[in-house]
């Protein structure tokens, strides 16, 4: 494993940023501050952080409706994200996308996506671009266990393998497609077993264990970067919040919730890092304080930002339309 203590601090900061962002958004939503609806990533931080730690701005990711974590891990500006969730003109998408469509192509973030399973085909496209132009850019397609049952994911995995594209399919199996358990909706024992169908390496790891995700992603992304084709990494984990905010989560028992809290990916990371003497308590606390300020500043930034001008409805449909 190639983790320096600087990198350790970076990934810790990424995970804490995701957690604090989502907890804050949940609170703002409950207070009626935010329009629309939000799908929160808290609980899955180790996956986005562990995978994106191997990517640069030139690499691409496709995301899901639960995309805030991917955006943060890929380096999308926190102020612009918060303003987007608020629907303000300073948002990452000028307030036209909202929580479910936050994107920043310059950061290689090809968009959260409101359509389950839509990211697979898009990821084939950025993969094809890299292959056609002969660059070493890698694309990671994040998708949920629910999306695993969409035909688009089958088509995309097959096409990516036929064309030997520099892609990694990362399945975030949080156990539920909305309220429907994976054990019910998925006929396979492991989603990663489906890699066999495409002659693609498939592995299942504990998605609450940053180090396990980091190692599996390192191997898969390395393979893609060397031109050796796609891989499938299934990360098993959980989400703290419902499918969307307001979901009463009746499909979780109290025991389930307790078991999840005991598997908290950030606590897990801290414990291991401290035990191994890789980081100090003081360094972690410093990050916590810094990130808390970043999130509060983002909320202030969003609140103080103007709404988009009404004429913005009509722009950005086309580059040019006579």
């Amino acid at each position, binding site marked *: 494993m190639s983790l320096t203590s600087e990198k350790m601090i970076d990934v810790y900061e990424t995970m804490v940023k995701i957690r604090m962002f989502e907890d804050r958004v949940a609170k703002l939503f409950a207070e009626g501050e935010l329009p629309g609806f939000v799908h929160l990533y808290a609980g899955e931080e180790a996956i986005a952080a562990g995978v994106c730690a191997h990517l640069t701005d030139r690499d*691409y990711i*496709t995301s899901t409706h639960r995309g805030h974590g991917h955006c943060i891990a890929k380096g999308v500006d926190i102020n612009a994200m918060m303003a987007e969730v608020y629907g303000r003109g300073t*948002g*990452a*998408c*000028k*307030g*036209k*996308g909202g929580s479910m*469509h936050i*994107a*920043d*192509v*310059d950061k290689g973030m*090809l*968009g959260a*996506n*409101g*359509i389950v399973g*839509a990211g*697979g*085909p*898009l*990821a*084939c*496209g*950025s*993969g*094809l*671009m890299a*292959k*056609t*132009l002969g660059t070493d850019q890698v694309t990671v397609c994040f998708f949920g266990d629910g999306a695993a049952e969409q*035909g*688009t994911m089958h*088509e*995309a995995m*097959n*096409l990516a393998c*036929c*064309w030997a594209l520099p892609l990694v399919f990362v399945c975030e199996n949080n156990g539920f497609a909305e309220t429907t358990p994976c054990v019910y909706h998925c006929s396979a024992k492991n989603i990663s077993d489906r890699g066999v169908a495409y002659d693609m390496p498939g592995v299942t790891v504990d998605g609450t264990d940053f180090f396990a995700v980091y190692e599996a992603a390192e191997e898969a992304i390395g393979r893609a970067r060397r031109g050796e084709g796609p891989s499938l990494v299934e990360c098993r984990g959980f989400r703290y919040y419902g499918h969307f905010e307001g979901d009463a989560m009746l499909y979780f028992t109290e025991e389930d919730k307790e078991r999840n809290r005991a598997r908290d990916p950030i606590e897990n990371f801290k414990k291991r890092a401290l035990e191994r003497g890789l980081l100090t308590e003081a360094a972690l606390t410093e990050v916590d304080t810094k990130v808390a300020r970043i999130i509060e500043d983002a909320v202030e930034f969003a609140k103080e930002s103007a709404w988009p001008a009404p004429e913005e409805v009509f*722009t*950005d*449909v*086309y*580059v*040019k*339309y*006579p």
Partner: protein
Amino acid sequence: MATRTITFREAINEAMRLEMRRDPTVILFGEDVAGGASLPHMEGENKEAWGGVLGVSTGLAAEFGRNRVLDTPISESAFIGAAVGAASTGLRPIAELMFVDFFGVCFDQIFNQGAKLRYMFGGKAQVPMVIRSMIGAGFRAAAQHSECLYSIFAHIPGLKTVVPSTPYDAKGLLSSAIRDNDPVIFFEHKLLYDTEGEVPEDNYTIPLGVADIKRKGKEVTIVTLGRMVHFSLEAAEKLAADGIDVEVVDLRSISPMDEDAVLTSVKKTHSLVVVDEDNPRCSLATDVVALVADQAFDYLDAPCKMITAPHTPVPFSPTLEDVYIPSVDTIVSTVKSLRK
């Protein structure tokens, strides 16, 4: 510019060839666009099995190699979506969706992804892709290989929709579509592939959204597109013999649509007939009639007429399919009825 007579099929092939020479980021993919991918006796010798199901992309794999002319699995969602992803990250893909009737298996990638990315991302992305697709009845290809359906695409904000009628237009419009920075759906009527026309040898472009008056006339305006342009011109000849002077406006693209050309013609002739091979409800035909009713009502001397396919799927039997397709006779009799 030197011209010669070539077919509609050759004109489309030539547009792709010249644009691929001009810009290394232009690539073509789809089912059997070359054919025989990976087979040593084909790929090794630069041969194609088909060059597209009706031979439209013949010779492109030989010239540009199979890294730029890629056969795909029968996975329309995956490769249309790949076109969107590739376009938003730096290529100019041409994706061939064999028949428009197949859009049902991949429409999400067209209308939720390709058409909306730019808007959803606040203008920070562009999707310069072309989807080429065959349309049209008359091929005895039955209900799932024969429709037009272009009206559905024109309905979607973010897409441009082009329907050429002649080899000259096809080449110039396709070149424009490939250079365009927005997603363009380019429809090719399969019964036009063997039609011929004068086409310049060099590259040229025809702007999207500019109609072409295919026949000048003073008394009745026919607004049409695609194969129906030829039916309308034939009808206009017959009507001329009866002393009725018809103007034929070929829209060429329906999103953007050249509203000025339609209105200018109707203000001159005071009457409108729309000839459209698509189905009639919420269609191009109704759209053009609504435009004229809204903006040129006072100029009309007669009710606007629509000649369209019926509100049915396309039947297989030749006798039935011939009833389905708008006919020259119907155009003639409809125009005459306006004059009574």
